[in-house]
């Protein structure tokens, strides 16, 4: 067991898979000599060389497209997109190509690539270094989308993603990179793609959340327990697409009250799908409407600190929503 931050866990997951399988490689902007703008890939180029850890030109479509072509010819590439906000040029290669090879070739070609994507609000990041863009990828059959928050989950899921024969988009919340450390088993926990995790059991209500907001939700859940005797069950989807509907719906049936909270612009976010599924599948069990919290429908977190405050969902809003649910 080692104690690691999210960032270290992802680093170790990469290094571990690269040591175990020489077809695993990393490519992206500044991932080599600089070790990535967040230092996730630090030291990898020294260990694995300039090709297996490749600094690419500034061309996201090329990064994703080349990863596909590499995977077709025997490699297992992990592509890094420097910030989620810069993934749109790669959208076509990920959504129309990587996700479709297997189906369109009748199962002949598969695309075992992983696309790592740092996302989420960090102070000062502003419009183009803050967005939560996961919903863009959650309407595409053939693709898998994961978004772990805790170190052990992240290392385990990254290893699973790399070994997965399908393309996996791997979201990492920037603000969680160094937020806390956690024990991670040597060689990484086994965390399968497609399974949600219950962080905290509870009987009174359910919170479904991920990313930085999950940390806040867990804090609020503790507070509610001590201050109000309300026991919230906190569920993290881990895989956003396809969803582990079973775990989420079971929790909803147990508690009868559900809040879905994330940092994405509320309308059209992944929370909509989760809420729709719960509202449908757990209808008979619901004692209150499925509530959602997200960022307001505004482009995104502004640069100026005082403006930023008004943007994030935040612990108070989560608490207020949960108390409303509890009293419903």
């Amino acid at each position: 067991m080692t104690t690691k931050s999210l960032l270290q866990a992802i680093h170790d997951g990469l290094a571990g898979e690269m040591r175990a399988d020489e077809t695993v490689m990393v490519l992206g902007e500044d991932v080599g000599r600089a070790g990535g703008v967040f230092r996730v890939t630090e030291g990898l180029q020294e260990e694995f060389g300039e090709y297996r850890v490749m600094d690419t030109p500034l061309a996201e479509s090329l990064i994703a497209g080349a990863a596909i072509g590499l995977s077709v010819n025997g490699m297992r590439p992990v592509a890094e997109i420097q910030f989620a906000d810069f993934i749109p040029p790669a959208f076509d290669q990920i959504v129309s190509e990587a996700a479709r090879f297997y189906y369109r070739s009748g199962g002949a070609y598969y695309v075992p690539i992983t696309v790592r994507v740092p996302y989420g609000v960090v102070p000062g990041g502003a419009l183009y270094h803050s967005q939560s863009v996961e919903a863009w990828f959650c309407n595409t059959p053939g693709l898998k989308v994961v978004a772990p928050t805790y170190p052990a989950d992240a290392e385990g899921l990254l290893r699973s993603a790399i070994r997965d024969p399908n393309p996996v988009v791997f979201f990492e919340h920037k603000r969680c990179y160094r937020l806390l450390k956690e024990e991670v088993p040597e060689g990484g926990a086994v965390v399968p793609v497609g399974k949600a995790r219950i962080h905290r059991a509870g009987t009174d209500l359910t919170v479904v959340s991920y990313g930085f907001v999950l940390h806040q939700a867990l804090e609020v859940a503790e507070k509610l327990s001590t201050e109000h005797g309300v026991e919230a069950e906190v569920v993290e989807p881990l895989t956003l697409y396809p969803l582990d509907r079973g775990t989420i719906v079971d929790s909803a049936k147990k508690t009868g009250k559900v809040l879905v909270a994330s940092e994405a612009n509320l309308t059209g976010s992944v929370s909509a799908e989760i809420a729709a599924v719960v509202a449908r599948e757990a209808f008979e069990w619901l004692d209150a409407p499925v509530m959602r919290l997200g960022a307001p429908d505004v482009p995104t977190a502004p640069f100026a600190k005082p403006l930023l405050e008004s943007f994030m969902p935040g612990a108070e809003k989560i608490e207020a929503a949960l108390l409303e649910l509890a009293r419903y």
Partner: protein
Amino acid sequence: MAMKQTRSRHEALALGAEELLKIYRHMLSARRTDERMWILNRQGKAAFVVSCQGQEAAQVGAAYNLRPGHDYAYPYYRDAGIVMTLGMTARDQLLSLMGKGEDPNSGGRQMPGHFSSRELNIVTASAPIGVQFPQAAGTALAFKMRKEDGVVLASGGEASTSGGDWHEAMNFAGVHDLPVVFLVQNNVYSISTPEPLQVAGSIAARAEGYGFPGVAVDGNDVLAVYEVARGAVERARRGEGPTLIEAKTYRLTGHSSDDDDRRYREREEIEEWRLKDPIPRFERYLLENGVLDEEGRDEIDGKVKAEVKEASDYAENAPFAESGFALEGVYAVVGGKR
């Protein structure tokens, strides 16, 4: 040819009669298969045709240099000539045309012309134009990383150079001297849009800006394409990097069976290009050089036509995939046989 040559062009290329006849046969097979498709279309038996006609020299001349199943090909929808040179059959084409279960490209999921063969390293083709170029560069990089001598052929029409993917791939291939050959078949139109509205400057000339050779070649002259492509493939195999080939050619049919080309081009223009049709042209070369006589030509054509007819009958009678096939196979199975 006005110039006197001591040796014939094919001798200079070290191509024997057998090889010339193979090349000829590939071109003819592609053409006759395509012709058959239009008949089936007019008979109401095939909803959609997209044609290679006019571009067989560019396709076969280039693909003939590949080692099927070892090198990789990223063809585009007109490249019947490429995939048939690599080993796909008339039957494959006609099964795909009719969307039958045995369609090797997709089992009837994709439209015709979206070629795929894992055995032949023909990478599953898309409809979005240009996406194959970054993929091809990646495939070439894998060869380079493993120090193997594989080569990748990436093909597209002249409009496929207008999108960003082409450029990003050209640049990347140039940065790393990747073993990839870019084949652009400039057939003057992209659907209705004529070349002057599509391409600024010259496609072939662009390669220099990326630091590797670009060659414009008469795309209706199969030996000329063969020669240029051979040089490019050998260069790539030697690890010296990419080449861009712009094959100047012409689309003899409409863009597809859905297109009415009278909206945008003159009949005379097509007639002029018919005179340069690469198949009669190569045929004349073979006749003039004594590689083929009229009888031999008729024999080959007869065989090809019979093959196509048989393929057509087979495809017509072949079953569709079961309807459940549409709903399965979205994800490869973790821990599956791969």
